[in-house]
Structure formats: structure tokens, C-alpha cells
């Protein structure tokens, strides 16, 4: 049985840990004191780089690498803490904000010290009223105790924190959408490049970090890189030549919901399998696992064939899914995947910011197609299209055979892929919202195609038994094989 390893959440249940005094009793701010006493800013940046910390917000981008892109000679430079946690199935940041806000402030202080930043904006989700209240109280207290403001602890370090509530848009959790919203504009993502590290808030270099990422910093500084890298697996990145280490170090706040007996946030080492995680969360509620969403609603779904997939950034990327924000939703045999997809697509159609064409008009279209199928109004006409599989050259591609598919399923896949192509991982949109839409749409349809076909055939939602509802991996390219369209096959 796997045990929880509580680091960020260690003192979460201590009464009044949100107050400065109690927080200090539990090593509060000692890691920051240690940072300014023992290390130069460059040392901290190097420690973060060496620790292999990956951004916990969703993309899993190396934090140290992100910091290294920030130009050192342009001031002011800003830190934006992304507390706009709005991915369906994710609820870990709100506990930090509501219960232990001083930990976040300490993480921010360490980041500010390392990067020479004097101003931090915490963009907090508008719905987190309690979190905002607690955070504001903690900020006020930190100012009073001399941990924020000018000349902190006599070191000459100045840090100001402003908390800014969002107004309720999912897309403001995207880093450039967040920046636009913070600047008082419509929350619409920017074109990249330039990336925020070069041109962010008010046109200045900006580090955008998730709450959880920042909360890791005190422990990396306090306990050292060696301690930190012991947790979680490190793989070799074979895409690089020669292969480079691809660390998935530290713990992750997994938000487990759905059909488990004890849903909640669990802090665990990275690299555990789905099965282990379900066990930690009190086991499955129901007979069988039908599907697992591994990283918030935008992540491609995993089937019962893939329950031994390790839940870390690298393994899930190889499985053509993603860890994302760590929002894990478990579904048992009673769940209908068409219905689940409809639910998710309704959310995305509502939340598309409408800035760029494919997403603005593609997302509601996808929703409408799924709605039609779920209503039993899917067209039962079929079309013949090339079948993809293991081709003659041994690679994944056009097999030369054809397959019959319901026209609406082909349409669903085609429209989703036109927003963002999940096979080539290219998107026609400005931000990755596009892929967050087409990923679930295409992966649900491909992996649970029998259930979609049954809904069209029967004219109503039909929940098939797990074994019948899923297409086995060897027959479907939604799994690990990388699909290469014919015209690019030679690259």
C-alpha cells in the first residue's frame, strides 16, 4: 500500500496555520531566512534548475529553464502567481490558499529573491472568496511582521504582493490570458512569441508560476536538492541526442474525484500508477474502472488497458495524454462516455474566449455534434475512409485499407482536429485551449468508439460493458503510437 508523502500539505490541518505565529512555529519563513542568509540569488536559481522542478500548472515546463529565459538586464520584472485554478477536476491550490497562505508567500519571497523581483501579482480565481480573504489577511500580516514591503529583514530586499481576483473566465488561467486580464483588458491569450518571460505584464519580463510550483520552493531551499530529487522518477529523454535526464521529481497534489471511495487531494510522489492512486483514494466505487481522466478535463482519457500508466509528466506524455494540473477523475462501469464528453464539451464551448476563429466557432460545433449523438439524433449514414494502423513500412500510417465509419463520428474527429490536430500536435489557434478541446473529443471518440456507435445505432445513449466499450490499444491509434500523416511521413 502506497503511503501519502505530505510536504506541501504537511501542516495543512494544524489549527490556525494561516496565522503568522502558528506558521512560524512550524518552520515558517525559516527557509526564506536560510535562502537570504546562505545563498546568492543565482544559487537559488541553480538549485531550482537542479531540482528538476516542473511547473505544476499544467504544461509541466521546467521551472528552472523558464527562469533562465528571463532577461537579467530589464527591470522591473514581475512575478505572477497563477491562482486561477479552474480546470474541472482540480482543487488543490484552493486548500493552500484557504488554509496555509503563508507558505505561498514564503515561496513567492524565495522566487522574488532569486529573480530580483520586487512586485508580485497573485491572480486569484474570483470564486475563491474564502481563499482571497485568507490570503489577504496573510499578506497583511506578513507586511506587519516585516516579511513584505521595503527592506525585508534588513536585507535591502523589497517585495510587494498584490492579490487580484479574476472575474470568472477559465481562459484567464492561461498565462497570457491571465496577464491581459491582470492589465485590465479582455481575458484573451496573446500570440507567442514573445513569451511572458520576455514580455509579460505591462510589457516587462514576467515569471508566471502556479501556486503549487511556488509552494515547492521553500522545501527545495530548506531541504536541499538532493532530498528533493529522491522523490519521483527520472527518465532519459530520448528525443534529445544524446538522451538527457528528464526528471519528474518531487511530490504532486493529486486531486482525485469521481468513482472512488475517498475523493480528495492526496500528496504523493510523482510516478505512481493509476491503480495505486485509486487504492490510495480508498479504492474504486463500483465494479470496474472504465476510464480515468489523468490531468483535468482537457487531458486525453485513459482506458482500463492503461491503468498501469505512471502518473507523471513524462509517462503521460508518452501515453499521448498529460498530467496537466493533476485533476484525476475516475469513472466506473456505469458511466457513459458520450455523456461525459458532452459535459466536457459544454464546458469548453462556454469557456472559449472567442478570440481566434477555429476555437470560437469550432468548440460549439463539436459540442453540437456530441449533443446530437447523445440525443440519439446522430446520422447513421456512413462514409468510407482510409484506415490507419501499422503500415507496410512498419510505421504507423495509412494501411492501404479502408474502414466504414459513421459520418458524424468522422465529422466530430475532423472538426476537433481542425481546431487542433491531436495526431501531429499542431494547433491553428492562438493558445492551447484548442488542443484542450480536441484532445478529449478525439481521444474519447477513438478509445470508446463502440459506445459512440451504439448511441448512433440505437438512437439513444447506451452504456456498454467495459470490455465492449473500449477499443483495444493494438487496434487504435489513439493510444501510444504516433500517427504521421502520409505527406509528412518522410520527415
Amino acid at each position, binding site marked *: 500500500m502506497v503511503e501519502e508523502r505530505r510536504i506541501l500539505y504537511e501542516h495543512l490541518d494544524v489549527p490556525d496555520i494561516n496565522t503568522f505565529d502558528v506558521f512560524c512555529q512550524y518552520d515558517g519563513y525559516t527557509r526564506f531566512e536560510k535562502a537570504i542568509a546562505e545563498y546568492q540569488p543565482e544559487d537559488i536559481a541553480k538549485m531550482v534548475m537542479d531540482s528538476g522542478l516542473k511547473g505544476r500548472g499544467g504544461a509541466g515546463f521546467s521551472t528552472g529553464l523558464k527562469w533562465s529565459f528571463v532577461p537579467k538586464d530589464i527591470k522591473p520584472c514581475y512575478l505572477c502567481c497563477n491562482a486561477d485554478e479552474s480546470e474541472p477536476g482540480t482543487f488543490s491550490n484552493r486548500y493552500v490558499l484557504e488554509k496555509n497562505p503563508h507558505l505561498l508567500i514564503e515561496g513567492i519571497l524565495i522566487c522574488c529573491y532569486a529573480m530580483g523581483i520586487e512586485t508580485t501579482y497573485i491572480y486569484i480565481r474570483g470564486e475563491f472568496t474564502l481563499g482571497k480573504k485568507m490570503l489577504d489577511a496573510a499578506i497583511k500580516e506578513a507586511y506587519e511582521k516585516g516579511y513584505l514591503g521595503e527592506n525585508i529583514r534588513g536585507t535591502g530586499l523589497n517585495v510587494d504582493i498584490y492579490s487580484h481576483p479574476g472575474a470568472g473566465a477559465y481562459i484567464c488561467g492561461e498565462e497570457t490570458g491571465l496577464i491581459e486580464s491582470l492589465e485590465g483588458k479582455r481575458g484573451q491569450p496573446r500570440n507567442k512569441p514573445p513569451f511572458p518571460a520576455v514580455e509579460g505584464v505591462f510589457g516587462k519580463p514576467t515569471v508566471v508560476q502556479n501556486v503549487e510550483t511556488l509552494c515547492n520552493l521553500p522545501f527545495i531551499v530548506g531541504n536541499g536538492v538532493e532530498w528533493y530529487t529522491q522523490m519521483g522518477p527520472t527518465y532519459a529523454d530520448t528525443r534529445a541526442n544524446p538522451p538527457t535526464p528528464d526528471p519528474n521529481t518531487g511530490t504532486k497534489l493529486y486531486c482525485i474525484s469521481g468513482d472512488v471511495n475517498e475523493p480528495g487531494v492526496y500528496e504523493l510522489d510523482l510516478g505512481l500508477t493509476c491503480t495505486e492512486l485509486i487504492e490510495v483514494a480508498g479504492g474504486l466505487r463500483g465494479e470496474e474502472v472504465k476510464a480515468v481522466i489523468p490531468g483535468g478535463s482537457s487531458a486525453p482519457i485513459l482506458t482500463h488497458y492503461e491503468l498501469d500508466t505512471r502518473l507523471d509528466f513524462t509517462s503521460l506524455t508518452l501515453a499521448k495524454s498529460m498530467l496537466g494540473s493533476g485533476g484525476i477523475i475516475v469513472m466506473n462501469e456505469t458511466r457513459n462516455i458520450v455523456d461525459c464528453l458532452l459535459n466536457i464539451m459544454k464546458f469548453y464551448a462556454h469557456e472559449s474566449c472567442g478570440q481566434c476563429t477555429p476555437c470560437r466557432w469550432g468548440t460549439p460545433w463539436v459540442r453540437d455534434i456530441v449533443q446530437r449523438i447523445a440525443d440519439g439524433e446522430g446520422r447513421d449514414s456512413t462514409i468510407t475512409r482510409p484506415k490507419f494502423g501499422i503500415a507496410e513500412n512498419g510505421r504507423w500510417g495509412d494501411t492501404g485499407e479502408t474502414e466504414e465509419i459513421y459520418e458524424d463520428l468522422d465529422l466530430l474527429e475532423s472538426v476537433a482536429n481542425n481546431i487542433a490536430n491531436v495526431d501531429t500536435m499542431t494547433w491553428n489557434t492562438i493558445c492551447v485551449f484548442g488542443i484542450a478541446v480536441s484532445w478529449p473529443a478525439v481521444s474519447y471518440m477513438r478509445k470508446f468508439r463502440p459506445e459512440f456507435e451504439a448511441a448512433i445505432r440505437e438512437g439513444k445513449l447506451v452504456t456498454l460493458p467495459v470490455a465492449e466499450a473500449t477499443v483495444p490499444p493494438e487496434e487504435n491509434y489513439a493510444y501510444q503510437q504516433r500517427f504521421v500523416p502520409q505527406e*509528412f511521413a518522410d520527415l
Partner: protein
Amino acid sequence: MAFIKLDDLEVEVEDGTNIVEAARQHGIEVPHYCYHPGLSRPANCRMCLVEPHVFFPPAGAIVPDRQLATACTTVVRTAPPDRKLDGKYDFIVRTDSPRVKKAREDILEFLLVHHPLDCPVCDQAGECDLQDFSHRHGRDKSRYLEVKNVPPKKDLGPDVLLYSTRCIVCTRCIRFGEEVSGSGELGLVHRGSHDEIDIPRSHDGTPLQLLDNKLAGNVVDICPVGALISKDFLFKSRPWFLEQADSVCSGCSVGCNITVEYKADGVYRLKPRFHGDINQHWMCDDGRLGYHYVNSDDRLQLPLKRVDGELTPTHWADALTVIIEKLSEAEAADIVVIGSAQGTNEDNYVLQQFAHDVLETTQLGLFGQLPGEEHKFPQFTIEADKNPNTAGARTILGSANGNVVLEGDALWEKVSGAKVVYLVSGAPERPLEDAEKSALENADFLIVQDVLPSEVTQLADVVLPGTTFAEKDGTFTNSTGWVQRIRKTIDPPGEARVDWEITQQLAKQLGGDLNYHFAGEIALAIAENVPGYQDATHQHIGDAGIKLA
């Protein structure tokens, strides 16, 4: 200069040029909607996707980049020697690869999902980017079965209607309001597929601010589809029935480059034409909507002669005879010849020759519209001088030896003591100030050459029907010294004649040696005789105009 490979072409382009412009310069069309050369680039339409090529080290080869890039935001720069592709190219891009073509088809499919396809009743049809690009790059059928969004039609302001159903949310109009006019009336309301362009409104839908600024009409021009429509042009004509001529706006001394669109029965609309040093891509609504007097039913079509206190239509020979009689009787010192800042350089040159050589008077005047208000915008200025050619007329009238050009009080003082006043006006609906009115009333015999009945013509003894900017060839000199061509589009109404021809006819009948056949000939004479205008021949001026030294 950057050396790039554009499809199969090897071309040089300026550093900092984006791919849309680079391709346009070399005859390749990259379809786009949100990009406009005069505005910022949000790259939100995703129509201009192209395929850049990059060096891929593992393969040791140049391959198409993984992601397509928007051509509008992809800027070409000279690469350092070690970063050149294939040893020589600064950039390699394809605008015609299968991937690009598919992306265009896909985007067009999305754009047409909620578009009503009401081209048969749409004003934009025929000059619509959505129509053109769908035709050239799109698919022939839609796969969309669901119900289309039907956002309401909106009245945004005095001259602009919004057909929201046709809108593709490229946000050009919003950016225009923010960047060029600085007024920012337009914005997006709602979110996602319900995005709509709108003006600020209260909760019950009452407009709080209308799209009512002097540059508002430009949003109609830059709208790539038929969403923003000019009330002035609505349902007047199909654009393909209109002929076009490059010209210059006569509304003020800025001298905005325009295209006059016309049919045989009149001028239908004016559209701005790009000039990098004068008006960029824009023009103001005063100019844009100021052409209506050209088509007016009230236009002077016959010469008028005062008989028993009433202005009565007569024929040219009669009118000229009366004038000749008066002019021959009067002493040179008692004759005042007044040129027009609304007239072309050619009109004024012939007038000046007539005055100097034939009448032998050196006392000339300059007349034009009363000054208006100056309007400054972040990227545009409407000048207070409401005449297109004040600078040119002043120089040219005063170009001959000893000529004095009187303006304002000095002119009216002179006029009130004159025997014969020959006033070329051309300023439509010009009100008269008290001093002007009493001076003109005091003149013994007033000849007015004008286009519309006005307070000025009411005082005249003889009225000669002249022509507007749309009916003659010539040049205007704007306030910054640009000499630019205007071109004849429609025929003058009735028996109205080109102003310099009238003047020349008078000169001939008085024994003058003037014998020009067309405006270009006069421009040659101007080039020869007026200092600074050496190069200002029609041949040299061309479409772009020339700036005086």
C-alpha cells in the same frame, strides 16, 4: 535586405517586412482578414497561416516547421551568417503546401459556420474578402448542420450599420477605434461564439455612445466582410458596376488620396487610397460624404443673367457677350479677378494669365470655403482649411510679375470699390459673412463662376456654370506641398464647363493669346513658369504625387 525563399521564388525583401507583405510584393496572395497594414496584428483570424521551414539538426536537413505560423506576425530579418538556411537564405517559407491549403480550407469552413451567406442581398458582395477567399481557397460545401447564430442588426451611428450575422470578429474596426481615431467606441461583447461587435449600451440596450466620430466611415472600408455597412452607400449600387478613378479629396487641405467610384449618372462614393506621407489608409467622413453636391439636382447647368433683377437662364454666347462688354469698358485698375482655392492649379493658372496678360490687372484675389474646425486624432488630422488647393492657388495666382494676391479684408476693401469683379468660387453652399456680402453688393458688376446656387450667386449679375473636382482633370497642392492629380470621372451637368475653359474663352474673345487644349498642357506651362513647380507635370506626378522642394 533579407534574402528569402518564398515558395519557389528567391526574393529580397526589406528587413522587418512580414510575410503577407513580402508575398504581396511578389505577386503571391496570402489570404487574411484580421491583418491590416495600418493596424496592430492580433493574428486572430488564423487565415494567413503559412509553413516556415527550419533546420532540424537530427535529420541534418531543412524541414517544414512543426507548427504553421501566421504570416502577418512572422517578420523577416537578415540572419547572422552562421544561421543562414542552406547557406544563403534568411528565411524559407511556403504559402502553397498541402498543409497550408488544408489549414485555409479549415479556417474558411469555421468562418462560414455562422455566416448567413446572404451575398445576394449583401452590399459587400463583389468586394468581399470572405467571398473571394472562399472562392479561391475554400471548400465547396459546408458540413455544418446545426442552427446558425443570428445576432441582431445594429445601428451604430450616423453612417454605420452593423449586420452582426455577417461579422467574422476580425476586430479590425475595434483596433481602428483604439489606434487611429482614438475614440474607442467599438468593443466586443459576450464571449466565444456569441462574440459581437457593439457600442457601449446600458442594460436595456440604449446606446450610451454612438460610433459618431469624423473617422467612423473608415471602419466600413476596413471591414473585410459585409458586416459594417455605410448607410450612405447601402443598396445604391453593386460595386462591380462602378468605375473607379484615382483622385484627391477636395474637402480640406490635407489632400487625402481617394478613389472616386462613379457611374455615368453621378458619383456613388469616395474611398480612401493609400498614401504613406499624407493620409495613410484613411479619410474623414466630411470628405467621404462631402461629394453629394456633385450629384445635386440644383447644380448650375446654364449661364444665368440678371434681367429685371431676376437671374434668368441664358445661353453661353449671350452671357459672354455681356461680360466682354463690361470688361472692355472698365479700366484695368477697376477690375478684380478672384481665383478659387477650390479650383485646380490649372484653373488658377489660366485665370492668372487672363488677368495679367489680357486684362492687365495685377490685383488678384483668393476665395474659398470658410475655415472650419481642426480635428486631431492619434494618427490622423483634419485641417481647418476646408479648401484642397489654397497653397497651390496662392502660389500660382501670384506667380506672374507684379501680381498681388489679396485675401481677407484687403480683398473685400478692393472689391467694394471695383467696377467689375470676376469671382471664381467653386465652393459649394458657401455662406457669406457680412463684410463679404456688403463688399460684393457694392461692386458694380459681379461675374460669379460657381457650381451650385449660393449666397454668392444670388448677388451676381452673371453666373457661369463651372465644374467640381469630379468633372475635371488637374492638380491640387495640399498644405504640406504635395502636388497630386485629380481626374475627370463624370461629365459636367447640362452646359456647365470646365473652369479654365470658360476663362480661356473669355480671354480669347478679348483678344488674348491663350490656346490650351487639355489640363496637362497647362501643367507644362506651370512647370515652366511657376517657381518650385518644375517637376509638377501630369506625367511626373503620376499616382503618388510629388512633393514640392
